[in-house]
């Protein structure tokens, strides 16, 4: 049957019918003990400057959070390694949330298991759950490595992962050699990005230590020619592809440490496997001998960077997400510097094309006031992009922005970046704030455009500001994560996303006089 022969109303149209309008009116009597007028007044008040001040003085409750917890990041990190099963030590619910959360963003399955702790584990500790869990999951899902992270519950009762894993080996549940990496990720500290960092560090330090290899970084010869690249908590599978493209153009050898793009962008072959792609386990200890390491999320990867520059004694270049022309320039310079290779002509040409595209669109971008929400490294990239296109960041919220790298705090860097351009003069950076704060900002001092995750849609709708979805999570749009936003190509994608949203708005708000064919 190719066409809809039925007339079944969905509730959008159904409720426009008179009797439902009526019914809704009737219901109001027990919704709230106040009149329409009071409701309108309260709504108006919630938009006022007075309320905004109160809202910003709010200390103890988070309303509409814009961060997820540490173990969610760990699950993503574990999926970046070949045939590795993420294993969450805690009660079952957390893991179910992580799986749905990640799957709803990527539209792909997320293999991950938990120890399903219950109240006796709360009393006696979770060792038996961990040992049984290891036995069951290895038998069921046949991973080549298990990567364990904790949740708040395991942390509160003080479970000792290292000794539990040791006991599992003594009990013969897993062999002495079977690789099990782990990290501690209580949810009451940090956020998804610190959890990501903890697991990457957990895995690479574990695989390195057990290999017995000694790091002789940049020593050339057989193993020393490669470059290490870390993308970080990366919600865009397209960014991995873009990074490969760039490194391929340089013709350099490299190891991506933690590449979950395979797991989150696998082809439909008719057969589901649990594991796709990922960094090869044997490549990890070799990475200690690399030419150097390039990190694209310096705030996210803080501990991992410290480990690599410390224990591996490696030269490290840490950037924030390379968005925009300048951001990408920095990236290419860093690759060039670390590898000693010149920037390839193909990339210079691509740069020229994207600059051309930016020029084409600039009249529509200039002076557009923007609100931004995201993780720290993404925000640094986005601020840079806005400033170079003449857009004016106004409100910036970073819930998990209380991080520093090399003693520079995110907030300070963001503010310095904004101060470097006249387009940044109006901006204010708020760390530790949530999306309800953003709502106040949007309502009090409106902007032309909001940029952030799907969660921002409620505040944006209240304030009637169009939303461009960038970041994590994006639940309500399809395939956004497949398009890169880093590199010159990514810049072009960002640009078309933003400029076309603005053009669409122009059309939507235009009843007649300025409704034009050519823009």
């Amino acid at each position, binding site marked *: 049957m*190719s066409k809809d022969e039925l007339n079944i109303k969905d509730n959008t149209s159904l*409720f426009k019918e008179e009797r439902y309008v009526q019914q809704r009116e009737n219901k109001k009597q027990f919704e709230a*003990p106040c009149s329409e007028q009071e409701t309108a007044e309260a709504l108006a008040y919630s938009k006022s400057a007075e309320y905004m001040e109160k809202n910003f003085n709010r200390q103890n*409750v*988070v309303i509409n959070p814009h961060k997820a917890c540490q173990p969610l990041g760990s699950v993503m990190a574990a999926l970046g390694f070949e045939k590795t099963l993420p294993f969450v030590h805690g009660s079952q619910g957390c893991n179910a949330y992580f799986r749905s959360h990640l799957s709803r963003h990527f539209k792909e399955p997320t293999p991950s*298991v938990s120890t399903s702790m219950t109240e006796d584990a709360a009393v006696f500790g979770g060792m038996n759950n961990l040992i049984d869990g290891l036995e*069951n999951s290895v038998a069921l899902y046949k991973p080549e490595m298990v990567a364990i992270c904790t949740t708040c519950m395991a942390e509160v009762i003080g479970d000792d992962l290292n000794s539990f894993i040791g006991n599992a080996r003594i009990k013969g549940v897993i062999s002495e050699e079977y690789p099990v990496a782990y990290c501690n990720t209580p949810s009451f500290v940090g956020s998804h990005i610190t959890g990501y960092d903890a697991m990457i560090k957990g895995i690479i330090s574990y695989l390195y230590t057990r290999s017995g290899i000694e790091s002789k970084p940049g020593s050339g010869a057989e193993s020393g020619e490669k470059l290490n690249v870390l993308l970080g908590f990366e919600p865009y599978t397209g960014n991995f592809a873009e990074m490969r493209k760039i490194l391929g153009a340089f013709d350099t050898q490299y190891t991506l440490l933690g590449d979950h793009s395979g797991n989150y962008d696998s082809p439909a072959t008719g057969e589901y496997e649990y594991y796709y792609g990922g960094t090869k386990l044997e490549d990890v200890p070799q990475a200690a001998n690399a030419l150097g390491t390039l990190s694209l999320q310096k705030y996210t990867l803080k501990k991992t960077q410290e480990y690599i520059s410390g224990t591996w004694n490696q030269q490290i270049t840490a950037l924030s997400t390379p968005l925009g022309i300048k951001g990408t320039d920095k990236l290419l310079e860093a690759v060039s510097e670390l590898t000693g290779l010149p920037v390839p002509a193909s990339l210079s040409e691509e740069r020229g094309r994207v600059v051309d595209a930016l020029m084409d669109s600039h009249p529509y971008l200039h002076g557009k006031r923007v609100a931004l929400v995201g993780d720290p490294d993404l925000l640094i990239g986005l601020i840079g992009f806005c400033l170079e296109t003449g857009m004016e960041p106004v409100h910036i919220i970073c819930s998990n922005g209380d991080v520093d790298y090399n003693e520079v705090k995110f907030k300070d860097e963001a503010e310095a970046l904004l101060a470097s351009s006249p387009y940044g003069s109006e901006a204010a950076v708020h760390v530790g704030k949530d999306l309800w704060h953003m709502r106040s900002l949007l309502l009090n001092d409106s902007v032309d455009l909001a940029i952030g995750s799907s969660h921002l849609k409620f505040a944006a709708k209240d304030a009637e500001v169009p939303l461009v979805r960038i970041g994590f999570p994006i639940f309500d749009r399809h395939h956004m994560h497949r398009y890169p936003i880093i590199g010159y190509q990514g810049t072009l994608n960002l640009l078309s996303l933003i400029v076309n949203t603005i053009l669409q708005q122009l059309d939507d708000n235009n009843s007649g006089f300025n409704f034009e064919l050519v823009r």
Partner: protein
Amino acid sequence: MDPVRQDEFDSEACGSIAPKAKPCPRPKPGEAAGGCSFDGAQITLLPIMDAAHLVHGPIACAGNSWESRGTLSSGPSLSQYGFATDLTDSDIIFGGEKKLKESIDYIAGRFAPPAIFVYSTCVTALTGEDMDAVCKTAAERIGIPVIPVNSPGFVGSKNLGNRLAGDALLQYVIGTGEPEPGTPLGVNLIGEYNIAGEMWDIEKLMNSAGISVTSRITGDARYKEITWAHRAKVNMVVCSRALLGLAREMESRYGIPYFEGSFYGAKETTYSLRQMAYLMNDREMERRVDRLTEREEARLSQDLRPYRKLLKGKRAVLYTGGVKSWSVISALKELGVQVVGVGTNKSTEDDVRRIADRVGDDTEYIPEGGASRILKTVKERKADIMIAGGRNMYVAMKEQIPFIDINQERHKAYAGYEGVLRLAKELTYSLANPVWKLAASPAPWDREGPAYER
């Protein structure tokens, strides 16, 4: 109050026949399992749309879950807000009670909700905070009900959480209010959460037969209407698994008769409406229901004709829990779709009996989760379509299996007579989409034969 232990529930009878199996099976460590009790409690209570729902714990529980459930509201949206105390390490050490207290005050002051539900989580249950006491004094201070929901994740599964939420309703909400004089009293719908607006279809049907809904527990509910749920004449339990205990308790406390029913499938819908009228003890209403259901069924069977032709003999694997496991089978049977595999891991003994009544002998029961187990059934039984929840959807796509979402993330309403039609339509669309052919055929250069023939 300590979180209720699971075995206290296990010993409690459930429904008219005490279930033999443990009502809420424990998950096995190391397997992919579903949501926790906290999640379950939220499923039950979040559809009280005008109340505020505050999660007391670290960011995990709220940050990963707020506003990700398709329970629709016809008015207020306070329930959509993600409120959390976002405990940090110092709160864990020094206690989060002050933060909780101030959070409650803030919400009350700013949002003036008719009630605030406060959820404990693994962490706050473990650190032994006296949430009940904080809620109690807060309620006295701010003059609105502040209801503690003691359902931390580790006490067990989602189902247990549904029941603990039902407990909270019994203890703190039901019976605390009275309807306005003149409010017509009828049926409480229990365990219907208005996913994709299903509740509205049901209500429309009931209204056409002159049956009024007294309280929605809890799809598209308002707090106040639940306070007077004890004045209803009949309770219908839509999701038997979760809230049967609530109905039983209301029967013994308030003498309200209850029955279990479903709105999936025309037969089940007709049965449910008849049962309501019968228990209301109103002859005239019974006659009205008869006329309505006859008319609706006739119209439906007319409308279904083109779909039946296409769906007849199709084979489906159904992987869902609770009441849907058997009632959706009824709906599918009416469409001529054969269920060749069915998940039973979240089903009660009663559910399994009902499944058995409805399917043939060659249907495979899938007792445990895990994508590979479901896929195996689909392959071995040569199923044409998989009907399951969101977490299995992407696995189905990988295997190129047509799929319909039946769980809480679904965007289509399948209840009532119109729901059967929608289901038929979705099944047909999913099966007939050209993408399956595209996916199944190799690229031209991988095909056999000379190029000009491919």
